[in-house]
């Protein structure tokens, strides 16, 4: 049986791109996804490209250098590595590889020449960053003793991508290449990046919350992603709060009408004899909650209409710490992520 929340096609993907409106928990869910995909003794890589050190903050480790290093271990022996890609370091890596610049690279960096080159052509930054990601996805290790076949180093790579406003531009490497030379090593590698990003090996997931603006932005981005011919993955609905109110009470509660009397008798049955202003306070909290539940229902139906696989993650009221990431990863597994 295939779980529609995480269809078989997504289980095949090896590059999971995670984007979302700022503030919706994009980095947190990218981390949880990398951890969920590492279950079962697998190895995953979590990559960030905006130099924010978000991965280090989420996993409570010192800032990541430009090198892949282990940041977490899955409960049953899998491993998550983290990498913070920096465009300038990636450019230096290229120059060293193809032009044998060696130690001089550092001098160039000190002079500001490397930064200058990456700012000269804004598209170059994106090409370099996605190029590095592609290299990680394609990297193989060892040799299978029998067949002599090399196996991928990472079972999956999760990219904590730029937010929705910029993500399609970031992934549209074809366009970015337009500003670069038509030959040369970076150009030929970029062709490989384009191929990877437009193949079923990639899935672009969007993190959202059940609020008006984030959902609108998600739907707009879904259109953009499809228009650019990128493979759309799942929508990760974050911070879903339980609806505490019984359905019958909901409609009335949104207006606050007649909530007081029944509530007081119920509270007394619980042994709570509260002053009027306390009861009023509880009523106004309930009204706010009911209003929010109604908004959530409305935006949820707009989201459903997009017909995309959806996963839900609850709001962790105590906040997200390392334990929270493990909890979210577990919940992703329960919804079929593998």
């Amino acid at each position, binding site marked *: 049986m295939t779980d529609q929340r995480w269809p078989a096609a997504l289980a095949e993907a090896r590059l999971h791109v995670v984007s979302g409106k700022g503030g919706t928990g994009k980095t947190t869910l990218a981390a949880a996804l990398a951890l969920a995909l590492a279950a079962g003794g697998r190895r995953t890589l979590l990559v960030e490209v905006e130099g924010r050190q978000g991965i280090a903050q989420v996993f409570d480790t010192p800032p990541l250098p430009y090198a892949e290093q282990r940041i977490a271990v899955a409960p049953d022996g899998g491993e998550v590595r983290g990498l913070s890609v920096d465009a300038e370091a990636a450019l230096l890596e290229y120059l060293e590889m193809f032009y044998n610049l060696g130690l*001089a690279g550092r001098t160039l960096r000190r002079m500001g020449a490397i930064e200058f080159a990456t700012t000269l052509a804004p598209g170059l930054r994106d090409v370099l960053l996605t190029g590095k990601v592609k290299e990680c996805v394609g990297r193989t290790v060892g040799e299978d003793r029998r067949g002599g076949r090399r196996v991928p180093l990472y079972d999956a790579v999760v990219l904590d991508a730029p937010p929705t406003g910029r993500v399609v531009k970031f992934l549209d490497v074809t366009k970015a290449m337009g500003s670069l030379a038509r030959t040369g090593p970076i150009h030929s590698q970029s062709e490989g990046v384009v191929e990877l990003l437009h193949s079923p090996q990639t899935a672009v997931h969007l993190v959202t919350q059940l609020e008006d603006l984030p959902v609108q932005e998600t739907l707009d981005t879904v259109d953009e992603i499809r228009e650019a011919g990128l493979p759309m993955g799942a929508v990760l609905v974050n911070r879903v709060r339980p609806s505490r*109110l019984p359905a019958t009470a909901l409609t009335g509660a949104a207006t606050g009408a007649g909530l007081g009397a029944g509530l007081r008798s119920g509270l007394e049955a619980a042994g709570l004899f509260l002053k009027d202003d306390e009861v009023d306070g509880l009523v106004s909290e309930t009204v706010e909650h009911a209003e929010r539940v109604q908004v959530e229902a409305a935006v949820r139906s707009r989201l459903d209409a997009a017909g995309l696989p959806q996963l839900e993650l609850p709001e962790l009221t105590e906040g997200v710490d390392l334990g929270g990431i493990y909890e979210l990863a577990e919940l992703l597994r329960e919804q079929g992520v593998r």
Partner: protein
Amino acid sequence: MADQRPGRPRHLDLDELLTDRATKVLVCCGSGGVGKTTTAASLALRAAEHGRRVVVLTIDPARRLAQSLGLEELDNEPRTVPGALPPGSGGELQAMMLDMRRTFDEMVAGHTTPERAQAIFDNPFYQTISTSFSGTQEYMAMEKLGQLTATGTWDLVVVDTPPSRSALDFLDAPQRLSSFLDGRMIRLLSAPARAGGNAFRKLVGSTFNLFAKAVSTILGGQMLADASAFVQAFDTLFGGFQERANTTYQLLRAPGTAFVVVAAPEPDALREASYFVERLSAEKMPLAGLVLNRTHPVHATLSGARAREGAETLEASRGDRVELRSAPSPDDELAAAVLRLHADRVETAERERRVLGRFTRAHPTVPIVDVPAMATDVHDLEGLREIGRRLAS
């Protein structure tokens, strides 16, 4: 009152700030997704309601917020917000949305002859710089702010800052663009052998030549040629630009300017706010305080533990009723739900206080106002007015 208790941050009185005639520029900054634009628009509206002549410069407002401000037209000029104020109120509210390309064009045109300006506009490289260079938006927001204050038409300019990945980008970007445009590097790259003189050549010499060759292979010779032509054409303007950027920078330090840092009660947003507060203080730029957006204060003093206990009592008795096949009481069901809700809310409020606590321990003197979350997003003037009331309370 409560604000005088030790350990509690000072209360940020925004009405006092907005009605103070000495406040001439108000800059709203903070990381993305915290409600900066809405805050800027609400503050502008509130100041106008207090009788001030206000213009709000928004950078990239959500569509419906833009509509509510009457910003359907994109002509890079402020327009009166229809229906914002009752006639004859004395105040005035205008709004505009930044068009960075046009602002850049106007800046170029204002500094040179029409022929030279045209040569710059025609350069393909100018098109890259004026639309997609990281930092152009920030630079142009500052340029526009300078223009708006220079006209003297308004007595308060409220400015929203670009949705950059970090709140600090907006202070650094103009500098970054300036150092890019100063042209030293581009001259080296396009003609490394001639530029820089002997001493420099000895220092980096062949390495740089190799690098220039590599870069031109990557970027293409044409791009370097365009970039070089652009920088040469720009050279004559450059002094003027630099001076202008400096003037705006000075304006940000001037006594009539106040910064409001906006954050949500989340660790990331408050961390950014912290960096920003430190940076403003290092730059001697005047910080008015922190707006903590979308908080969830509790409305009843009942403790979370007692609420949870009460809910459990009711749920247990409901269990008994089910066994006895008698109908569950709707009042009990409602009360149990309300108590659970309250317990959640207490927990959320505690987390928000803890997160804020980290900020206030580092910055105990920064005044703070919190703005309780609204159930729905703001997309009309009435919503902005309500946010304004919450901001000023």
